[in-house]
């Protein structure tokens, strides 16, 4: 795109000033000063924008870094066209990555056939980060006109953190039909004594109460607490409102991902089925599953799914629609673990509705509130009220102070819950 900068506007007037004065005074010296202005005016009058014909390459030293690792990026710009007297280059650094050393911008003059290099370092963060096109502005020598272009150079940095260490979250009483670790309120095969009932044909011989038969002659069957596995969906709050920060460049989403990984690890270890859903405009769904493959899949999705991106969504969001979608996918017997900073009332309503539809909900809420300004103190109070409201409805809430490990917060909260 060609654009005149109009920076020299008024230079003709400045050139005319000595000219006029010189003519009036008939003073050749002053007239000569006018030449200065005319020279510059002629310089500025050339408004042919430079031809931009460049080849750009981007070199990334580590495309699959660990979180926090420094990644060196080098941009090489080769001028295949004529001289560029004033070339400004801004690399399209992915929005979630922070530059830690150097600058992704460069201003230079580039002769034909020469190559300029631009090096900087970014800090890797969770997610798949695609570089945006390189933005170029070329100006002519006098800067009177400029041409803007973008050059797409595809590069990606993919950072998949390992799942955080397990945090054992006690589940609520609803299970599916597979054997597992959750003690249920119904009798059957198991370990812990539940009740004695009258014998029915077909009962296993190993469960007949022989002592009672010897004493009274009646056949009776011992029942144990049935131990079943649970199906759990981790639901992460990916709405714009949930991207509240902790004041140190880490948004609630990072804490949600950390907690989801920790809880999922422990659940998978215990033999429960774990799935993943995004509550927000960007949809992600991993059906509950078991085993090593599921663990790898959860790790991957937690790191890379767009719904859990470190960058807040731009799209419009309809909570009802997202909730309906989650409900449609959740198996009937599944529980939900909601991860949310509880930054507004809408998420509270959604949690209550999920519970009302028969999916027991446990909430893990990273606490990112601060108390340094009246507005923030108000937000802190509001969040506390939301937690109380949820607890009054019988929903378990882990209020996680993010300065401490999530496993500790979960264990402390679990002590207050009935087993």
């Amino acid at each position, binding site marked *: 795109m060609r654009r005149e900068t109009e920076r020299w506007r008024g230079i003709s007037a400045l050139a005319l000033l000595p000219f006029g004065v010189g003519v009036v005074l008939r003073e050749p010296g002053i007239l000569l*000063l006018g*030449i*200065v202005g005319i020279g510059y005016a002629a310089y500025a009058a050339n408004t042919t924008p430079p031809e931009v014909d460049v080849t750009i390459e981007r070199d990334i030293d580590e495309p699959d870094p660990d979180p926090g690792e420094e990644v060196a990026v080098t941009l090489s710009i080769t001028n295949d066209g004529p001289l560029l007297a004033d070339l*400004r280059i*801004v690399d399209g650094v992915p929005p979630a990555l922070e530059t830690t050393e150097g600058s992704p911008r460069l201003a*230079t*003059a580039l002769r034909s056939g020469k190559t300029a290099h*631009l090096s900087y370092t970014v800090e890797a963060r969770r997610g798949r980060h695609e570089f945006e096109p390189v933005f170029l*502005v070329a100006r002519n020598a*006098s800067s009177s006109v400029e041409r803007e272009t973008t050059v797409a150079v595809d590069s990606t940095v993919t950072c998949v953190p390992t799942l955080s260490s397990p945090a054992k979250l006690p589940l609520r009483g609803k299970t599916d039909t597979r054997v597992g670790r959750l003690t249920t309120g119904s009798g059957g095969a198991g370990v812990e004594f539940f009740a004695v009932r009258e014998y029915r044909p077909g009962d296993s011989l190993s469960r007949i109460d022989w002592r009672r038969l010897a004493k009274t002659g009646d056949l009776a069957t011992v029942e144990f607490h049935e131990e079943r596995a649970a199906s759990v969906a981790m639901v992460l709050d990916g709405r714009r409102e949930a991207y509240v920060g902790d004041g140190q460049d880490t948004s609630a989403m990072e804490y949600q991902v950390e907690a989801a990984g920790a809880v999922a690890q422990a659940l998978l270890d215990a033999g429960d089925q774990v799935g993943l859903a995004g509550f927000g405009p960007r949809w992600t769904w991993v059906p509950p599953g078991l085993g090593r493959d599921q663990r790898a899949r959860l790790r991957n999705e937690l790191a890379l799914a767009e719904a859990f991106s470190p960058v807040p969504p731009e799209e419009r969001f309809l909570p009802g629609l997202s909730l309906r979608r989650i409900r449609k996918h959740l198996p009937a017997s599944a529980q939900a673990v909601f991860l949310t900073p509880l930054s507004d009332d809408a998420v509270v309503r959604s949690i209550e509705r999920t519970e009302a539809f028969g999916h027991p909900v446990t909430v893990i809420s990273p606490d990112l509130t601060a108390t340094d300004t009246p507005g923030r103190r108000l937000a802190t109070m509001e969040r506390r009220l939301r937690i109380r409201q949820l607890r009054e409805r019988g929903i378990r809430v882990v209020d996680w102070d993010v300065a401490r490990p999530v496993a500790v917060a979960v264990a402390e909260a679990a002590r207050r819950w009935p087993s």
Partner: protein
Amino acid sequence: MTGIDTGPPRLGVIIALGLAGISVLLAGSGSEASLALAVLASGFVLGGLLAGRIPLLSAGTVFLVLAHLVRVGTGGGLELSILGTVLAVAAWDVGEHAHDLGEYVGRDARSGRSVLTHATLSVLVGIVPVGLGYVAFVLAPGGRPVSALVLLLLAGLLLTVGLER
């Protein structure tokens, strides 16, 4: 993401200050009137460059050119004032360019080559035509006719205006 320091590159500011400084000294070396104007101009130029306010810098440049006009009008040497005027305009050009660079790429980006290229061209563009004009003016036979010079400049102006269209 931390914010970008959009201040002008230091090299650009230093060069502009240097050019303007020499121009102010040259203007001040003439009469009292031109000295007064030069002092006024230097205030504006300094403020404009250091605070990044281009309108101030432009106003300062106009005052500086006026100071040189007054200097020549009050009997100062022509050569130094021509040089001073070129330096004044070049200082504005370099200062404005640096300010603009700051807004595009920030103070932390490498921009030395761009600043130096621009500054060199800016000074050359002032010196070369004036040098030619001056040589013609000095060497012209027959008592340096002002009317010829007027016509020459008029032609130059018309040409410039024509080019701008």
